[in-house]
């Protein structure tokens, strides 16, 4: 139940509430521990010798303790990696814990200074990673990133990961976490439906509007969206702006720069969506539909496009009729002078693995991650869970469902052209202001200019608010 929500890169709605709540209490305890002065690392086992076969210097007989979030993906994939670890180090005793509430279980152990060797800090009630970093509770994974990949000795682990994965786990210049799954956002449609009607997926916004006109004439609504949660329609809007304005636009937004929300790219994207709504291309009633209702209407071919992240296919299992074959496309380009190509997609990783700084067997922990992030392990995961892992090429040679296949193709096509906004996770109140404004925009109650003015006002207030911790990128 409700497992998908735990694998989202940015936790939305309810899952976030629980997460924030637990993270918030965990924090003071952790910092109390740090100031408590118990900093001896004497218990950690001495590392083994570093060799080509053992690049991280694992002590072969040191026990390894792995704590994994057992959520929507189960923990079978982690167990498989442990089996490989034991195959390589038969003397090592591996202790596995698959938990639903990882945070609650490991928080006291962080405080007591005897954390496990690997933690999958994921799911409701996970610990706030920024807090862990501030409390020096997590170790630098640089050695792991620069070690050769487990089943591709010629490449460094760092180079086997999809774009953005290392950045997602990097805090203040140090990479302390590796995310195992990868989420991509785009526009979804039914391939057979489009083929049947002779519609071609538009690469530019002008083509999109032209196609919408055609679609509307057939009695099908061109778009629907999950109106009860306007954040869904925010994603394509902000993606489009990011393509127009490039990374600079995103950075200005995330860094709360003055007039960031008045940048051309954003205003133009808002204007584009205002037009989409103004032309009546959004299914009537969408604004009041929950995600399940809107997505079901879309699966019934009442609407052609719907915005969503790559989880959509698994979410619609059992709802999408046979032969619906949904696929995801990148958000169309708005202008000919866009700074990023059409193929660029918004993407982020999640399911965050880390090695505690006070782990007794940190080399073993990193070695375990090297095995987990191997191509074979990632491939098995992709096969079992229909989800894209953060390892590049993990789905090569697999027969993928239409949705997952299209997600993989989108990632391949994007190459290094993936981007993500951080303000949603950094400043939740701003995210709410943006969602509300976009909801009003696509319901024709405010103009694009009002939209950017409104959000800018909220961003300015946030920038001025000394009680909010600021981040920059």
């Amino acid at each position, binding site marked *: *139940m*409700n*497992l*998908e*929500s*735990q694998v*989202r890169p940015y936790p*939305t*709605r*309810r*899952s976030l509430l*629980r997460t924030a*709540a*637990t993270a918030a*209490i965990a924090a003071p305890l952790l910092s109390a521990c740090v100031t408590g002065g118990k900093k001896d690392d004497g218990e950690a086992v001495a590392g083994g010798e570093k060799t080509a076969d053992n690049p991280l210097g694992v002590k072969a007989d040191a026990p390894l303790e792995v704590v994994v979030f057992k959520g*929507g993906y189960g923990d079978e994939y982690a167990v498989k990696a442990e089996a490989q670890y034991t195959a390589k180090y038969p003397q090592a005793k591996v202790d596995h814990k698959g938990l*639903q*509430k990882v945070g*609650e279980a490991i928080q006291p152990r962080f405080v007591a200074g005897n954390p496990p060797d690997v933690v999958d800090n994921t799911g*409701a*009630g996970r610990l706030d990673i920024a807090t862990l970093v501030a409390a020096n509770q997590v170790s630098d994974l640089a050695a792991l990133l620069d070690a050769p990949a487990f089943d591709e000795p010629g490449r460094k682990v760092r180079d086997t990961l999809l774009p953005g994965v290392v950045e997602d786990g990097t805090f203040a210049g140090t990479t302390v976490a590796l995310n195992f799954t990868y989420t991509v956002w785009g526009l979804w449609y039914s391939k057979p439906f489009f083929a049947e009607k002779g519609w071609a997926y538009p690469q530019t916004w002008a083509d999109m509007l032209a196609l919408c006109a055609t679609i509307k004439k057939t009695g099908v609504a061109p778009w629907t969206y999950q109106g009860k*949660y306007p954040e869904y329609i925010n994603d394509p809007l902000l993606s489009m702006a990011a393509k127009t304005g490039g990374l600079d636009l995103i950075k200005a937004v995330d860094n709360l720069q003055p007039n960031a929300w008045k940048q051309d790219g954003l205003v133009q994207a808002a204007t584009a969506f205002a037009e989409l709504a103004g032309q009546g291309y959004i299914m009537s009633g969408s604004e009041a539909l*929950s*995600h*399940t*209702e809107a*997505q*079901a*209407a879309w699966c*019934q071919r009442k609407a052609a496009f719907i915005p969503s992240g790559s989880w959509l296919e698994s*979410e*619609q*299992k*059992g*709802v999408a009729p046979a032969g619906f074959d949904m696929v995801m496309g990148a958000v169309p380009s708005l202008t000919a002078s866009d700074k990023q190509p059409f193929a660029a997609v918004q993407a982020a990783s999640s399911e965050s693995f880390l090695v505690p700084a006070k782990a007794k067997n940190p080399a073993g922990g990193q070695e375990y991650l090297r095995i987990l992030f191997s191509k074979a392990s990632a491939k098995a995961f992709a096969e079992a869970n229909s989800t894209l892992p953060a390892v590049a090429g993990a789905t090569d040679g697999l027969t993928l469902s239409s949705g997952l296949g299209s997600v993989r193709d989108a990632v391949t096509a994007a190459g290094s052209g993936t981007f993500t906004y951080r303000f949603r996770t950094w400043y939740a109140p701003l995210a709410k202001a943006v969602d509300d404004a976009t909801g009003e925009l696509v319901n024709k109650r405010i103009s694009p200019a009002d939209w950017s003015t409104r959000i800018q006002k909220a961003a300015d207030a946030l920038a001025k608010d000394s009680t909010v911790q600021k981040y920059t990128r």
Partner: protein
Amino acid sequence: MTLLRSRPAPVLAPAPPAATNRKNPLPQLAMLCWAVVTSLPLLWAVVSSVKSDDEILNEPWSLPSTPRFDNWARAWTGASIGRYFLNSLIVVGGALLLTMFLGALVAYALARYEFRGNRFLYYTFVAAMFFPVFLALVPLFFVVQRLGLLGTYPGLILVYAAYAVPFTVFFLHSFFRTLPTELAEAAFLDGCSHAAVFFRVMLPLARPGLVAVGIFNFLGLWNQYLLPLVLNPDPDRYVLAQGLAALSVSQGYRSDWGGLFAGLTIAMLPVLVAYVAFQRHIRAGMTAGAVK
């Protein structure tokens, strides 16, 4: 507050004969209308709970072509309604017992014993009835967390009971006051201890009041949402209201309207059935002073 504790009204005087206003159909119509407005959404949920998703989405007013009871099975097991139901039973059952026990003791002690600070204690308990729970919510979360009771049955039971005791004391206080003293005095003369008088004599005498307040507490606790929402973050221990909210709003839930309506129906039916069975007590209880 004095207003709230004014004298109890007599229980259900017999209604005058139904003879007046026969000719005017409007009142009958109005009563019927409200009955329809009240029951239609509920009936709709029950009917929808045996319809297919297609029927629910496309013909909201129609009856199912064939009743699908598998929706119920799916809701009960697949959507964990069964587990939520059990969680609710455990938490509400435990909290109800604790509330009634503590509430009756306090109400009795404050109603039948004179001592310094009696009124102060009474108001200390009863005033909490009028505080918005929202105010306590944030610190309460941390209190429960610090006690290590977050997301546990005992934690929920204790908090539920703590928030139900004030009403129970308020209700039973006036009830114990109206009970005759002769029996208790006779029992004391027979050498009964204070506790024995309470448990053997006064508690049985107070049974009607206990039943009424018990029913109110049950309804209140069974339908509690805010407290578990904050204090019970573990999906495995969700109570029914939480589970249903999660089903209807969580993103991850696979769209299953039949299952959701079945879940709603499962949540509604026991309470409605219990009500029809006990409605005499409830009305008597309300009349006897619940809200007076």
